[in-house]
């Protein structure tokens, strides 16, 4: 089995992350319950005529994929695998509301076409003329991890050499409004810095796209090795510590081998206890970081976490804004990521310096 490497990264998020030369040096603090991405200049990546027709998710996904391709020095890839919880949901909403408002008359196909979950992966393929394997996973908070696992299996077995993997989700009006109704979005605005101390239910919703070039060939600019990816449809808080222990064991690691843990806390008082369990017990001596105060919560937010972990390993630096507990280790060698959403769809990912 060949090892699998992250050879380039790209992230469009609520922070200025699209510029790979910096790493969360200047943080944008928000006081809100919904936060949107800082747009790069899409015109640099997509012809304006095409961009005008594109859904936000497509624009973010295509641009992030181009940054990742550029950094890896590649023009094409063997496969494109994306994860998205909701696809281009603004177009889904547009089409549904037109169906209702106009009683199924006068509809046009654009928003229907873009609402298809695999539109971003399809558009990336179309853009670079990639006739290879093209998959889209749509399973809530493990959408991105499913894509990562798929790519890892193919690269290990040498079915492919370079695979573009990404997570992308966009915000949309109706989506926001109905999630406010059921308190999945916090009722009150919170300041980013105080997210984990909000003590209220729900999350601050966000959006974004993070893409990676995965390869079974190590390069000079390689960020990290992807050691393992595992997902769990359900887990109780009680089961989590043992699940984590056996996950590490399967990789011949112990808790003490983990230099940094990247956790998906989103400040939801009902579900952050999963993280707290680890934070105060099993991982209490491990350096802990978090990120959803920077990018918001969305189904593929963990792709931002993965971007952050890869950057930490490459730069051997932990930006101040993401520190949660513990002191920075002398070397950042092994990074563990843990994420879940509303108590379901948990994921454990291991990255290692190489």
């Amino acid at each position, binding site marked *: 089995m060949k090892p699998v490497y992250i050879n380039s990264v790209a992230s469009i998020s609520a922070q200025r992350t699209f510029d790979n030369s910096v790493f969360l040096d200047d943080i944008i603090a928000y006081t809100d319950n919904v936060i949107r991405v800082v747009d790069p200049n899409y015109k640099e990546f997509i012809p304006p005529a095409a961009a005008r027709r594109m859904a936000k998710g497509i624009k973010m996904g295509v641009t992030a994929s181009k940054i990742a391709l550029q950094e890896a020095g590649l023009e094409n890839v063997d496969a494109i695998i994306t994860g998205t919880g909701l696809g281009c949901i603004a177009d889904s909403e547009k089409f549904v509301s037109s*169906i209702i408002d106009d009683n*199924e008359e006068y509809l046009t*196909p654009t928003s229907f076409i873009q609402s298809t979950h695999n539109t971003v992966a399809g558009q990336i*393929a179309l853009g670079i003329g990639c006739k290879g394997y*093209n998959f889209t996973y749509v*399973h809530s908070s493990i959408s991105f991890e499913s894509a990562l696992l798929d790519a890892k299996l193919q690269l290990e077995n040498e079915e492919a050499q370079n695979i573009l993997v990404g997570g992308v989700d966009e915000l949309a009006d109706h989506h926001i409004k109905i999630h406010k109704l059921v308190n999945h979005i916090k009722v009150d605005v919170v300041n980013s810095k105080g997210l984990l101390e909000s003590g209220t239910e729900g999350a601050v919703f966000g959006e974004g796209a993070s893409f990676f070039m995965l390869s079974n060939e190590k390069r000079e600019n390689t960020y990290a090795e992807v050691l393992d990816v595992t997902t769990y449809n359900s887990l109780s808080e009680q089961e989590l510590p043992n699940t984590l222990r056996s996950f590490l064991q399967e990789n011949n690691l112990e808790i003490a081998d983990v230099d940094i843990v990247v956790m998906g806390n989103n400040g939801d008082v009902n579900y952050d206890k999963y993280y707290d369990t680890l934070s105060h017990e099993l991982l209490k001596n491990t350096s802990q970081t978090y990120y959803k105060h920077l990018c918001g919560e969305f189904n593929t937010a963990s792709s931002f976490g993965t971007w952050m972990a890869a950057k930490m390993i490459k730069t051997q630096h932990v930006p101040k804004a993401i520190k949660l507990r513990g002191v920075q280790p002398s070397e950042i060698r092994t990074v563990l990521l843990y994420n879940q959403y509303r108590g379901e769809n948990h994921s454990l990912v291991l990255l290692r310096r190489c």
Partner: protein
Amino acid sequence: MGKGVAITGMGIISAIGNDVQENYSSLIESKKGISRISKINTVHRDALMVGEIDFTNKELEQFLGLDANHNYSRSALLGAFAAKQAISNANITNTNSYKTGLVSATTVGGMDKTEQYYYEYFENKEVQKYIEGHHAGDSTQKIAEQLGIHGSLVTTISTACSSAANAILFGARLLKAGKLDRVIVGGTDGLSKFTLNGFKTLMIQSDTYNTPFDENRKGLNLGEAAAFLVLESDDVVLNEGKDVLAYVKGWGNANDAFHQTASSDHGDGATLAMQKALKVAGLESNEIDYINAHGTATPNNDLSEGRAFLRVFRDKVPDFSSTKAYTGHTLAAAGGIEAVFSVLALQNNVIFPNLNFKNPMKEFHLKPQTELKKKKLHTVLSNSLGFGGNCSTLIFSKEA
């Protein structure tokens, strides 16, 4: 290449039957499931024909024993119904006795509820429970719960009309890689106003019975369905003394990279997908005994797929037929129900007729099999081609 992946159970619900046996009977008796829309309140009722499942949501709820507070979409109900059949067909009583996962596929997810309560959400607290059920992964989470799968790999694929074929493909790779011992794979899609209207805007829906590969084809009929297969590792098959129904022998996915919704005229993606699958299966093109075509009966698909047949098989295109005239195009479920049909063809040594075909297309002389044909079958190739240029091929075989 290596051995195939064992299929040890199947479950299905479609417009031509509520279980495997009923579907098989309809297939050999040429019984179509295409009719006018009865369960969706749409202005297009008289302009479209669809493949609708007989069961109402109420009946499915009762079968699954759900209480009044449930928030299952139709896709979740159909999926759970079919997946439970598959498990029982594979004689599995405890899903956690082996490392068991679930890979499902859907395109509409909980859209039926979203379109029903889109504005009512703001006025009626009682329907707000469906908000959580909108996303595509929700139906899969519910199916996993119904099957008792806990703490395991459960995921969803959505690649338009090739979704379930891709779920089978990924499941097969997970078993081969030793990530799981057993995986339930397939797809589910209920009918919705969203898809009925969406395909209407693309002007590729027929107002009458769909006629795959016919010169005068007018487009597709949408359908609803769910189908799941149980795939098990060689070790499980051996330890449990399992009967193997057939094997997933080859798989391939490729992208047409031509247009967001249309296939290329020359079927580049479909050609590549079939070639990849043959390679994985270690088979030559002349070793395919029957093709269950995607054959949606849209002008574009059938031309593109037919040309791809000619590129892969040249002057020796095997017997082929599309079963879309029976079931309609069931979108994310299509690759799943056609996998069940492919296994049934292998088990019974029979090729199902391509209904409603009259005249060959002017671009080539390909003629689908139009009568039920008894023939010793060893291998069946099944295509699923979708939006985003997504093309998938699965090869099923009798022997490993």
